[in-house]
């Protein structure tokens, strides 16, 4: 038996293609990484160097004073705790809402499903700031302005719809009739969901959790509008380094590095789920 071998493309072309491709990739990565590198370097520089005219960066003058100042600061420490509590709490709330809702729209047939899916997307159509004013008024009514719970609820409103859409794709692609088989096997509706369907969608649940976590952790707009003192988050603290008179570049950079750290760590650990979550769930099979 003979096997048809497709004609091979000339080698030189491949090399040039590769070269161009990698060149472009390196260029794009550099573009994205440059500010990150700049922030990291800046966070280790003394204030005097950064505020000199023109500003200088001296790699021999590395120091950790900015971090010391930051960690010694009660407001920063408190913001760190607030951010952690709010992010974990809100992520959990998002999952509690989005997992069953994503299941429902992914696997059940009901009247008005299309309208429901469309309407929960409505939040994404306008700028977030437009929704913040009514949300602020609601929170004030409930006495939830400048509280952890208030922040969590507002994040829930913003992030849960994204979670529903993300999870829907994961539930949708599971083989049909699984719940029916479980029902016939004697399982209640709920049992069929949590023992048969949910274990098959864990990747989606993880992906949703990470997307929610990173989005909430790094959000500035919501806490800026809803928090003043008790429930101030890291992003608000970091932004406050830009005063009216001067900007504490070193402090801001250190705050940025510290506040970005958990998100980056999480993304690195769970990048397998994250990539799958953003591609697999989005594509209908």
């Amino acid at each position, binding site marked *: 038996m003979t096997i048809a071998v497709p004609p091979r493309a000339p080698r030189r072309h491949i090399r040039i293609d590769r070269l161009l491709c990698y060149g472009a990739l390196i260029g794009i990565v550099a573009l994205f990484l440059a500010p990150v590198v700049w922030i990291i370097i800046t966070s280790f520089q003394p204030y005097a160097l950064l505020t000199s005219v023109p500003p200088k960066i001296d790699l021999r003058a590395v120091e950790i004073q900015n971090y010391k100042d930051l960690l010694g600061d009660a407001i920063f420490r408190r913001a760190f705790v607030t951010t952690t509590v709010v992010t974990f709490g809100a992520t959990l709330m998002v999952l509690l809402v989005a997992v069953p809702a994503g299941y429902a729209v992914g696997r059940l047939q009901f009247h008005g499903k299309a309208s429901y899916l469309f309407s929960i997307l409505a939040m994404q159509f306008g700028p977030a700031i437009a929704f913040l004013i009514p949300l602020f008024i609601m929170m004030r009514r409930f006495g939830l302005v400048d509280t952890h719970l208030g922040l969590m609820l507002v994040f829930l409103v913003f992030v849960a719809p994204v979670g529903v859409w993300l999870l829907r794709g994961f539930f949708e692609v599971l*083989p*049909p*009739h*699984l719940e*029916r*088989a*479980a*029902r*016939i*096997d*004697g*399982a*209640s509706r709920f*049992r069929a969901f949590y023992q*048969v369907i949910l*274990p*098959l969608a864990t990747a989606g649940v993880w992906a949703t959790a990470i997307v929610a976590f990173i989005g909430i952790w790094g959000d500035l707009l919501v806490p800026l509008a809803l928090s003043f003192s008790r429930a101030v988050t890291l992003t608000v603290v970091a932004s406050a380094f830009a005063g009216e008179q001067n900007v504490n570049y070193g402090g801001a950079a250190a705050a940025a590095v510290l506040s970005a750290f958990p998100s980056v760590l999480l993304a690195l650990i769970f990048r397998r789920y994250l990539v799958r979550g953003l591609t697999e769930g989005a594509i209908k099979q």
Partner: protein
Amino acid sequence: MEPKLQVVDIVKDFGHTLAVDHVSFDVAVAEFVVLLGASGSGKSTTLNLIAGLEEPASGDIVLHGRRITDVPPNRRGMAMVFQNYALYPHMTVFENLTFGLKISHVPSDVQAIRAERTARILGIAPLMDRKPGQLSGGQQQRVALGRAIIREPEVFLLDEPLSNLDAKLRLQMRGELKRLHLELESTTIYVTHDQVEAMTLGDKIILLRAGRITAQGSPQDLYDHPPNLYTADFLGSPPINLIQGEFETHAGRPGFVAGGARFALPHIPPGLPQAAVIGVRPEDVELRADGERAPGESSAAHTVRLIESVGPDQYVHIEIGDQRILIARRPAAERWRMNDRVNVSFPAGKTHVFHSEHETNLGTI
């Protein structure tokens, strides 16, 4: 004897379409009932209604004389095998088999014993630790059957369980299903669109058409005495020859005239309408070479257009005017060739007469 399961006048509509339209039938203990029909005939919906996966708009499901129409599927004590098997992908074969037992709190040592016995019956014992994704189609099919058998259910419901298998495996599994049914004396309702499966497996066939029962009875009875044209056409392969035409007595000889062709008949029973559809099974069509014509036989010779050999038999396609084809199933030993001129006759008692409008069987000639 009281039937085990009764389906009483059930109706199911999906919005504007009536999927199941006043369907009633009984299933006796240890009976194998086949719901047969084309796609969209309502056979799967009927099965889902019996399982409790769909709710009827009206009508009742009765098990052992007890109305179970409102009982949820998990408390009906039935087992079902799905067309795509619907095995739990994240569980091993053992866990798939015992999932139902676990829910009904069967002790784990009993679970293991029953799983082992079920696996032995189905020949899947060596696969217990595998996941469904690591199994072949035939193996998955066995696990799906095992998941039903292990629970010793009141009624087995099978929804086109063989349609995802290749031809050879399908034949083999069909035999095994029959063997299992006899061995376990299980009460079974089996959905299929394949008339051969229905004929070979069923004690009783219920033929559905557009949500209604169009015929029910034993396979042989329905084949020999189809109550209507649809049933006659649905059962049998190659299908029954249906010829639309008129009865006519010419020069004292009774016959049936269709599109220029004339077929001799032994007699024309009184009371038949002049226009009708006659149906003759391919195996009942008799052929003689032109020139050997017996008196009273079809007046004109017809031409053989195609011969399909299927081993012991051959399907002889004969043109009978207006480019219509009649198929005769003849033993391979008969030497027919393309373009032979042949005379066609139908033996007495084998020609079905159907009303040309409401398609009911008016009797045989």
